């Protein structure tokens, strides 16, 4: 077991290296000259050849591509992600650290809503398959998968905020500010997981172990919860875990709709300002999160499955 975990951790290293390289390469493929952009962003009145050259020198842009990559990587490993073009007084790390808590809060609230709603609803849909509840939920799922998140967000803002005036439509601070954006983010995930859990449970119900549980005369509730739900959740675990980085990345649109002061808002404003170091680090962060969560939940699934777990 320990060896498996160590092997998985070691295997993650080349993956992370690849993620960082691709991320660095893409940002460097952007046609405009970063030095010029940096000068323009800093509102240099006249951009002269010498100023560009000096800036290139300062940013290390005159070095070969691979050297720059390794310089940058070494910096990243030390927690130094460079300096924001827009505001040279601020480090990229500082900017991200400032915005990260708000995004994590939003992602955590969304994940909580997803888990609290989709597990029981998916469970009930499977238990009362083709009953009225299942039919209604199937309709809701169908409609909600067809609606884009930002549109639902705007609709909620208009309904709850403007018309009914019961919830604030932008900003942050109290839990009431959190409700609309968190709900908007979670909406598409809720339908995905209701469907996943429902279908997984129906698939499990056909298994021999369920027939045998009935043969042994176990109470229906024990069969549904202890056996069928547990087995279904077990298969859903990796998908659920992978949705956490997706949630973090997915807040980007919703944060902007609700002016939520998180990473998504930072990223969009950095894109408008061509603040490349910030964009680069944001993309890297999301990539790393995907790798890390994938690893984490893969290990978790292995540890929790007696068939995969090797007794030591």
């Amino acid at each position, binding site marked *: 077991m320990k060896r498996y975990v160590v092997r998985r951790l070691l295997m993650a290293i080349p993956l992370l290296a690849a993620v960082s390289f691709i991320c660095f390469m893409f940002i460097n493929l952007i046609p405009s000259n970063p030095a010029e952009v940096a000068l323009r962003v800093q509102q240099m009145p006249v951009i002269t050849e010498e100023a560009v050259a000096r800036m290139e020198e300062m940013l290390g842009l005159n070095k070969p591509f691979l050297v720059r990559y390794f310089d940058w990587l070494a910096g990243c490993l030390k927690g130094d992600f460079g300096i924001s073009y827009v505001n040279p007084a601020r480090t990229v790390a500082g900017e991200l650290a400032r915005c990260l808590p708000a995004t994590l809060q939003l992602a955590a609230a969304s994940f909580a809503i997803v888990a609290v709603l989709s597990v029981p609803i998916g469970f009930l849909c499977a238990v009362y398959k083709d009953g009225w509840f299942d039919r209604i939920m199937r309709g809701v799922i169908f409609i909600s998968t067809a609606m884009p998140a930002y549109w639902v967000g705007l609709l909620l803002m208009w309904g709850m905020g403007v018309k009914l005036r019961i919830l604030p439509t932008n900003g942050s601070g109290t839990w009431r500010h959190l409700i609309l954006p968190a709900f908007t983010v979670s909406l598409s995930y809720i339908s995905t997981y209701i469907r996943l859990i429902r279908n997984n449970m129906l698939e499990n119900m056909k298994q021999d172990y369920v027939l045998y549980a*009935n*043969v042994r005369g176990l109470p229906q509730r024990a069969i549904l919860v202890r056996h069928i739900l547990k087995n279904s959740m*077990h298969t859903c675990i990796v998908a659920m875990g992978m949705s956490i980085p997706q949630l973090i990345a997915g807040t980007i649109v919703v944060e902007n709709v609700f002016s939520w002061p998180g990473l998504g808002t930072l990223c969009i404003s950095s894109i408008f300002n061509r603040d490349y170091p910030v964009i680069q680090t944001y993309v890297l962060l999301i990539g790393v999160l995907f790798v890390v969560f994938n690893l984490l939940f893969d290990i978790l699934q292995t540890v929790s499955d007696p068939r995969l777990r090797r007794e030591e």
Partner: protein
Amino acid sequence: MTPVFEAKELKVSVTGRRGERELVKGVSFSVEPGRCLGILGESGSGKSMSMKGAMGLLDRSFRVSGRVSLQGEELLTKSPEELRRMRGGKVGMVLQNPMTCFDPLYRIGNQIGETFAAHQGWSRAEIRSRSLEMLERMKIRNPEEVLEKYPHQLSGGMLQRIMIGIAMAMKPALLIADEPTTALDAITQLEILNEFIRIKEENTAVIFISHDLNAVSLAADEIVVFHQGMIVDRGDFRHILHRAKDPYTRLLAEKRTAVMRSYRRALEGKETIYA
């Protein structure tokens, strides 16, 4: 002697997309205490369906009609909860694929224990001691260790024994075995068959379902032959073997000679191993 279990004109039909289809078309049979009824028939002939229908193991898309009685009590009119308490209690059942019948996520001891807890108000300590006692009775070595094992860590024959043990632990009046030997190798099959013969001698009624005339012949006192949801022949083994009227039954009987040969070979193999 009054039968423990009796089915009269038992019918099972399923409603699918293309309307209603009759899977079991009115079968009647019964079994008395200490006797073993063999249900013989090729795969798909409705053997499992008739037992599942009788014991309330089918979902709402199936319709079961006719009359089924256990110790004089009518089963088809019972509530799901009454039927549940009967299953695993008065009626023990053993299924075909021991490897897939246990929940892969729970230890064997846990699954034995939950079955006992569903039928008796025993304490944890009592459940444990009864579980150990059951495993010992089923001649399972290192019972303490086996309780801690997960299903995938045990062999098919061992799990089949545990299934029989679970069924017999509640001292059922009827034991239904649905193809209990089909998934096992020849030597283990024989051991399991001997187990059923022993159970029969303890005065439990046994219904032994199989598509294998040979296995049925070793355990059963009386045989009914299923074909496409109907009973086409009935009688003792000698009758089935020599005087069967139905062409399908005769085909089964003829196949037996070939099967018997392979059995003998397996037995000889076993003797050389132990020699």
